[in-house]
């Protein structure tokens, strides 16, 4: 059976009062998500909801909602991408065209939206796109599949692994200002760090 966490009773948020105000504010705001989007349409958001939860192997609504909001904000606030290959469209365009292509593919093969497909079909299409081999060519000719896949993976991971619930699960003790870490040798833990719990 696949494991869920080594630290079932750990909750990084229970230490939030020890973080500086600025960090507290940023992290806490990830727990409350509103559902209005400035960039994504409803269909796009629903495709992404299914897509992103498959990317991280997690269906929990509130966490995936934060991922969607992060993607929406990133695509709408006009910030740069750091880098882009010359033959790839800017992120908002790449993702809009990409989601359209995903939808068109699902419609042409199954007359359904991506989020209406069976699990294994979703998985299969995602794998094809990650390898750049999704068909039909008429739909995918102008969308670089692997660039699309990697961009979405990157956005999804940066949001998902910034969610405090996920921090708790992986045993990340989180922000450490102003108190810092002191006990650093093998087998030493500061008081607020997660402790391995027996998994039998």
């Amino acid at each position, binding site marked *: 059976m696949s494991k869920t966490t080594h630290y079932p009773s750990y909750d990084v948020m229970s230490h939030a009062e020890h973080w500086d105000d600025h960090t507290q504010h940023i992290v806490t705001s990830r727990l409350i998500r509103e559902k209005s989007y400035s960039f994504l349409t409803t269909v796009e958001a629903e495709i992404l909801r299914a897509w992103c939860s498959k990317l991280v192997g997690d269906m929990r609504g509130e966490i995936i909602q934060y991922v969607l909001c992060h993607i929406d904000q990133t695509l709408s606030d006009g910030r740069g991408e*750091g880098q882009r290959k010359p033959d790839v469209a800017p992120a908002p365009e790449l993702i809009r065209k990409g989601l359209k292509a995903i939808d068109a593919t699902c419609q042409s093969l199954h007359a359904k939206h991506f989020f209406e497909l069976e699990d294994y079909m979703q998985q299969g299409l995602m794998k094809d796109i990650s390898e750049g081999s999704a068909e039909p060519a008429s739909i995918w000719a102008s969308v670089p599949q692997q660039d699309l896949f990697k961009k979405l993976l990157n956005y999804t991971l940066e949001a998902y692994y910034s969610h405090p619930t996920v921090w708790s699960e992986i045993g990340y003790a989180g922000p*450490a200002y102003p108190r810092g870490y002191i006990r650093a040798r093998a087998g030493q833990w500061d008081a607020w760090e997660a402790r391995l719990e027996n998994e039998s």
Partner: protein
Amino acid sequence: MNRKYANEEVDVVIVGAGAAGGVLAKELSESGMSVVVLDAGPMWDPQHDFASDELSMQRLGWEETRLVDGRDPLTMGHNNSGRGIGGGTTHFTGVFLRFHDADFRARTLDGVADDWPIGYDDLAPYYDKIEKEIAVSGPKHFPWGNFHGPYLYPERDPLSPNAYVFQKGCEALGIRHVVAPLAILSAPFEDRPPCINRGFCNQGCMPNAKFSTLIVHIPKAMRAGAEVLPNCMVTQVMTDKHGRASGVTFVHEGKEYVQKARLVILSAYVVETPRLLLNSANGRYPSGLANSSGWVGRGFMTHSSHDVYAKFAEEVRLYKGTPVLATTQDFYETMPDAGFVRGYTLHAHGARPLAFVKGIANSQTGLLWGEKLRQTALDYNFYGRVTMVGEVLPHPDNRITLADEKDDLGLPRAKVTFSFGENDRRLIDHAVVKMGQILEAAGGKVEFVVPDTAHLMGGCRMGANPDESVVNSYGQTHDIPNLFICDASIFVTSGAGNPTNTVMALAARTADYIRKQAAQLFSLSEKPIHV
């Protein structure tokens, strides 16, 4: 905008307040010159703008899009360029190494790249000065290179769990190792506290234990009278009828301004400095300023920086402590029979969740996602990591050029074209094997090798010959004597260690030169020049 020197011609205008720009601003204003510093990004307040959070602190990097090309397109943004007062030093990891004598003599020693027009001894007094100024902490004895310590401040203690793992692996293999020399305090200094091992150095240090020019050099420059203007993107270097630099134009909140100056210094880092020179092309200098050699933008380098992750039976906890605390330079210089020339440094290197997950999702074995990625990430605390800083040889085809696409200000975007060479690849392969051996000797099992790069250098290299270089060893452009370039772009080779100590030592040396030559430099302005 409230201005001190709005309509005046100042002695010096400095573009970019990063590692080099900060040092220049302090040195030149303290010597009595009128100085204006312009930086494209904000004036950060560490206690209020920084947070212990990887995602939100990505904005310390230069996020503006660059086009990346070549066989090995680079990751830009937070991965290498800073933005805002302090530049890259606000989010650098603080590893503070000197180059070795061999780094300045690649052509002589190994028949590759070029020699620098200066040697280690020319920089030694400036390394001393900079290290003293920021109280670098490090070992009593540093076994490699020309400088063997002791460092001004004692080495850090305790280290991080991952650093102890690294030490254990090195011990087992007979590899020498030290606690890394760091621009991070091990005891109080001036009004700053020692490090609390919070582990966020490359997301901005909140307690100010880590040096940055934002908190050290810029405040001193301002006290000496320098005018420091954040959120001012310089768009052009202006030249006068004699062909000399006469100042810069910049944009602040959508409005364009001019700053006249007798001396212009570009410290905007490896991509933006060449971009600015190329963007400043005019009738007299049609291929860009300071570019009579055609070398502006050419031969830029990065460091190869592959990471190796190994899984251990016990927890390591990569998030704890200053990321780099243990280091070896046993493989720094050309090894006989290794099949390649030059070398690399290895660091124990911590990682918080985002860096870890983004890394393993894109490892050499292919994309990792879905349930498999989630299961792996649940074992985050059981991974240890080693990182390399490998020398990459310069190649003229690795270059910064202007793209057709424009940015929001209407300026052509930078295009960054990069491919590794054969020597670079062999060097990486060697280092990856060594990193794996160290981790396995410490009891781990290698699971991921993640290709990466770090640190940019070159693109406006220094040299004695004006036909093959952009500046002389003081950063003075060969073509326009009152136009200086002083940042990581003037490097000739990349060396095999983290570069910022060298960037700052070069800046201190340039400042010294400008100070000594001031009378002559400032009197130049009326004489025409011939290119």
